């Protein structure tokens, strides 16, 4: 079974702190994604990576950066956390070789910025 793990299920940070969210997948997938999920807005893509060290901006990249130094690991960085970044953050991966429609999601990290 594909497994996507995220470093924390719950995180509380203060405004202005630098925040790292880590995501690891164990199926050698090429593509990895970071979304945030807010009530009434669905999932919105923050950043996408199709290979090591490669990244593309999604729909809402402002205030975020990403890092992909190894194929299995994709990190989301909030350089200076703000209260409007309080949200559920979901990581996903997909394979170029398998079903292109299927994304595998991690359990999510609920981040609260106070």
């Amino acid at each position, binding site marked *: 079974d594909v497994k*996507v793990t995220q470093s924390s*299920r719950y995180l509380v940070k203060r405004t202005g702190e630098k925040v790292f969210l880590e995501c690891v997948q164990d199926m050698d997938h090429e*593509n990895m*994604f970071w*979304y945030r999920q807010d009530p*009434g*807005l*669905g*999932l*919105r*893509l923050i950043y*996408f990576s*199709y290979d090591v060290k490669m990244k*593309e901006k*999604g729909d809402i990249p402002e205030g975020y950066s990403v890092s992909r130094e190894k194929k299995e690991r994709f990190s989301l960085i909030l350089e200076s956390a703000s209260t409007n970044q309080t949200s559920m953050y*979901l990581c*996903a991966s*997909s394979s170029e070789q398998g*079903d*292109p*429609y*299927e*994304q595998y*999601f*991690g*359990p*999510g990290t609920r981040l609260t910025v106070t």
Partner: protein
Amino acid sequence: TQLLEQSPQFLSIQEGENLTVYCNSSSVFSSLQWYRQEPGEGPVLLVTVVTGGEVKKLKRLTFQFGDARKDSSLHITAAQPGDTGLYLCALSSYNFNKFYFGSGTKLNVKP
């Protein structure tokens, strides 16, 4: 504005009832996916529909893709408490590197 509109936003029904939820867009899309997300978990893919008019069945769940490929529906027969969750529709960009999600229908099935 959302690329995909889902309705209803919330649905609370008794075990054994039937229900239908909808996903609509003003644009034509080549394929559409349905996911279910249980509380505290990430979404899990249920099905992908590709052909206009296509109907796919997954046990008590029936998925339909509109003839014009601008809408889709999910029908659940004899709902059970285990069906409780958030149902999301999504579509992908042509090269599968971006996915766009609707805001979801939150379903609660009471025993």
